[in-house]
């Protein structure tokens, strides 16, 4: 598994290096690095260090348990559901705004972690959403996400 991770890191560094090489020399007198020089230096260092790390991994084969996305385990299921809840929240915020997306997230995320006290969850959801909107939206005037069309209009009634 770690070899896969290291391969992704290697691919990232190689791509980074490729784009750094496209940046070309600087017109400023004395600027021996140019825009691409520093990135190139750290990318080369990165590759060298990555090779050393990968050699060590191959030498001492150690199994690392990564539950995320492993749906066969309870921990894997819970964390996958939670990742989905967070991603849904991020997407929903854009469309329905903070007031509606936040209670949905608070409920789905807590349920995905196995929380079963329904009444407490309902009170908690209402309380947290109200406090966050009041503190950030009303007191500190943070423009919380408003969503689009009717949700946007609705948000203006509240903060």
């Amino acid at each position: 598994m770690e070899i896969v991770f290291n391969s992704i890191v290697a691919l990232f560094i190689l791509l980074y290096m490729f784009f750094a090489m496209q940046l070309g020399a600087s017109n400023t007198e004395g600027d021996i690095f140019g825009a691409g020089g520093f990135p190139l230096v750290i990318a080369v260092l990165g590759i060298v260090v990555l090779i050393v790390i990968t050699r060590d991994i191959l030498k001492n084969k150690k199994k690392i348990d990564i539950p995320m996305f492993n749906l066969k385990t309870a921990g894997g299921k819970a964390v996958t559901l939670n990742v989905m809840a967070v991603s849904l929240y991020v997407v929903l915020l854009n469309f329905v705004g903070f007031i509606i997306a936040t209670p949905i997230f608070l409920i789905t995320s807590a349920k995905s972690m196995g929380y079963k006290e329904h009444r407490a969850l309902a009170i908690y959801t209402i309380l947290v959403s109200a406090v966050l909107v009041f503190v950030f939206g009303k007191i500190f005037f943070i423009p919380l996400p408003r969503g689009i069309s009717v949700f946007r209009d609705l948000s203006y009634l509240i903060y």
Partner: protein
Amino acid sequence: MNIIIQSLSQIIMPFNLMLITLGTLFGMVCGALPGLSSSMAIILCLPFTYSMDPVSGVLLLVSVYVGGATGGSISAILLKTPGTPEAVATTFDGYPMSQRGDAGLALGLAVSASSFGTIFSAICMVISAPLLAVLALKFQSAEYFALGLVGLSCITSIGSKNQMKAILSVLLGLMFSTIGIDSINGIERFAFKQPFLLNGINYISVMIGAFAIAEVYRNVEELSHRDTSTVTNSKVSLVIMKFSEMLKMWKTFIKSAIIGTVIGIIPAAGGSIASLISYGEAVRSSDTPEEFGKGIPEGIIAPESANNAAVGGSMVPTMVLGIPGSPVAAVIMAAFMILGLRPGPLLIRDQPILLNAIFFGMLIAALLLFVGGRFVTREFARILKLPYPLLGTLIATLGVVGAYSLKNSFYDVAIMFIFGFIGYYFEKFKYSSSAFILGLILGELVENSLRKQIIIGNGSWSGFVERPLSLFILMVAAITFLSPIISKYKKNKKAKTEKSTH
């Protein structure tokens, strides 16, 4: 003497004392909430100062600044979500100590160190403001580059378990710091014509993702093996350090306060760089550098003392030269002008009472940190009594608000989300998120000052070693970087020898 008495009489006016108290508390609350920075807290207070006399107005703003610099540590220690950028380094040891069940001690250390840093820098400010300001202006690109290296050099200690992985983490952080427009040539780098990448990646979103969101994922997967209660001591009360305990760590307190004051004075450096460099120096000078990152008291004292000392430090060039020492000081400078004061060399001559009033105001705010800290911590710690499914969702929600409110942009939320994954996998494979963040924060400073110095030297590197101050700081960086590697090598060698003899 007459000026000091006049300043004191201004300070002890009930209205001014009330302003200092409210300002400190408000700053602490704002600092503790991710998404609200010290500068935002000061901006929110600014309208209230319009009708005040200059001394009262400045006192309110300075006490908010002091409170904000301390408040960031509360969420850094309890939730692994730094409330302010200055509290990033506090997370490294504050959160592990809190996880060990010593959250009260961690918070007590943070408040004591913050208070000490504030008092120290206030004294420096009032005694040597004009001299320090002139000295700070001697800092050039070579010194800035060397300072950046000192900050980066502590990676070998932060990631003492696997130093190569810590080095790769910092290199990856440096790579991400180069995204955006190159500030020397104006060339677009790695932005792929995406407007949101032109200004680079905001390290606050990265930090929230890699620290807070990744921690939520990690806890969620563990919930299946245990009950849903939060793993922490539910009763958190601030443990105030005794004077005798402080004396045992006097070197860390004083050294960090000096670093914070000096870096605060240097224009545009600020509290976050001060805290990282101070942390690096604490690691370098420690007898047990391998303990850093596991919840060692010095790991909290060093960044907290430094970031609060930077408050007083940043006020020096703001008042004496009219050059703000930090973004927050820039807001305070704007307030000076609104209040009819003109920052610059004439300010201290024309308004001697103001300088002394700020000094006394900072002293009172520093003492109030203990009272405010106790109150804010107690209220903030209540949320730790929540079962983890509720606490975890709250952390994720605060993280989203914190990332979004940076620029009111969903891109920052998306970056936070992506780095939540990266932070999770980093932890699984024993890479260091802290080292990554160090690289991301200090990358711009290191690259720009390196290139600027070489341009000044017309392509020559000699400037770095010909300038005595730069050479000295570079040597400190080299020692900080190499000493944990050498000590690990020696330890391994000793272990091998013992094994072979047995």
